[in-house]
């Protein structure tokens, strides 16, 4: 009996964890209109109707594109700038290095919402409302990324860089041909997390993307919800929103869970 208790409990928690996703998918594929619940569980009546309806009714394609641009461009730029900064903080000596690093880290203590207003005023004065750069650029100053990069680069052996320098390689060349290949693991980890943070981000896209054209998928989903769209269509929209996250998760599951346990990455 006692031996059985653990698996039973595990399955119970797993059931509660998975049910909302199942419900989402079932309602998304149920015939539109009428009672969602009983109909939803009749698999023989499954239909793509809600997906085509929501795609025709709302600008989901454009929202998905916005989310993709926001996430992918941010990933590339954050990885580039934070690895450059991490390299300097770990391997170069320059005046103010420690103070700067602590100043970067100290910003972790300031919650984003506390500076939301000046942030918004600044970006709108610069003409960034309803633009991609207004959405992306302010989110690039990421202290977690710089911190992780610096920690990772400490362990790279100095001799490598010395040897390259003796061979006459320029600093930029050392960075692109030696540093970047060596830090591939941390680039991958951070890249995945930055992608998920931006894909799932809500408050900043909400205030900066004011026209319907500039909404991201999460903001679009929230407005669908607010506009009393049929529940079947909302769930179809939700399913579209979650697919990239599930793909990333499916491909990198073990890797993601391991890196949380060791680095404690959290947005």
């Amino acid at each position: 009996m006692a031996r059985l208790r653990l698996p039973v409990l595990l399955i119970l928690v797993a059931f509660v964890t998975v049910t909302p996703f199942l419900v989402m998918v079932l309602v998304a594929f149920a015939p539109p209109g009428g009672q969602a619940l009983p109909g939803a569980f009749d698999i023989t009546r499954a239909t793509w109707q809600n997906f085509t309806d929501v795609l025709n009714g709302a600008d989901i394609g454009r929202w998905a594109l916005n989310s993709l641009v926001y996430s992918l461009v941010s990933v590339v730029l954050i990885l580039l700038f934070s690895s450059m900064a991490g390299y300097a903080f770990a391997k170069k000596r320059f005046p103010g290095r420690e103070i700067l690093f602590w100043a970067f880290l100290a910003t972790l203590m300031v919650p984003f919402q506390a500076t939301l207003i000046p942030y918004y005023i600044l970006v709108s004065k610069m003409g960034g409302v309803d633009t991609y750069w207004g959405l992306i650029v302010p989110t690039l100053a990421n202290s977690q990324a710089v911190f992780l990069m610096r920690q990772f680069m400490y362990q790279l052996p100095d001799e490598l860089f010395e040897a390259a320098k003796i061979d006459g390689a320029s600093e930029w060349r050392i960075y692109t041909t030696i540093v970047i290949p060596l830090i591939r693991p941390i680039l991958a980890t951070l890249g995945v997390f930055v992608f998920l943070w931006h894909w799932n981000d809500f408050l900043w896209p909400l205030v900066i993307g004011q026209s319907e054209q500039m909404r991201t998928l999460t903001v679009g989903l929230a407005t669908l919800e607010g506009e009393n769209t049929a529940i079947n269509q909302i769930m179809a929209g939700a399913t579209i929103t979650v697919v990239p996250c599930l793909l990333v998760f499916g491909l990198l599951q073990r890797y993601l869970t391991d890196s949380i346990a060791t680095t404690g990455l959290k947005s």
Partner: protein
Amino acid sequence: MSEEITRDTASREAATGEPVAREVATARVVTVREQVTGKQAVREAGPHQGRPGTPARRREALVGLAFVAPMLVLFIVFRFGPTIGAAFLSLTDYRLSGEWRFIGAENYTRLFADDVFWESLGVTAVYTAVYVPMTVLLALGTAVLLHRTLWLRGFFRGLFFLPYVTSIVLAAVIWKWIYQVDDGLLNATLGALSLGPVDFLGDESLVLPSIAATSAWKGFGYTMLILLAGLQSIPREITEAATIDGTTAWQRFRWVTLPLLRPVLFFVLVIEAIQAFQVFDAMYVMTAGGPIRASYSLVYFLYDSGFKYFDFGYASAVGLMLFLVVLIFSLIQRRLIGREAD
């Protein structure tokens, strides 16, 4: 029996002058803790050539600055600037038009006299008090379960972590439907048991626990992974010794595992509390702050002050209050974790 174990651990600790396994349990979260408290040893870095002032040293400094430059510019414009800006704005009556006057502490006196502010602070405090134990207990329970089973461990670990990679907006949209009175999954289930219906999001006393449950579903996987790492770093000999002494599983958990896990547990408690105090997305989507402001959080108040009433100066003052609360949490953490490490 259990007292013997604690005494045994205690005597070992006394003999070595160091907590036996606490050190190990702490080691895994060191990077995590550093990120939050900024506490770590300053290490000397780099291939340093020559003495200060030599051309080689000057070149190294220039290269270093050049590599930091892009990030530095971003931080000055989009982090340091807005932080100072927030403090300054809160002393003005800045509005949408862009016209402003320096009004000193007026926003703050207005804030302290504003019932809606105190209400939102209360809502946020209650939400935090409900959400944090809920998430951490769920995470601790599943972490212990996973730690003790080998059966499909990786599979379950991934499954419990799954909601964490989705957005809170998505969780809110799905759960809003699950909570619905007429059609929702929960009330349909309750109905089948001839119970309910329960208006989860429409009842003033149920709305915060209901939203907290949604956030807990979304977020417990992260906390579970951190706690699982903590559990796995507890040396097996300690629990084995306790088993040989004939203790029950509960006694081992209560008197061996839990004390050794304390630093990690404390870390996740503070992280989750800081997180909970910034709650907004779920309430925006699920209840719009209602019913009658029963789920109107501090950030919601900030958002409305700024983007509904365009009272930017006032909203900045609310932001500073939020910062103050988060700062207090961080300081408590620093103090207590600092003591653990000593």
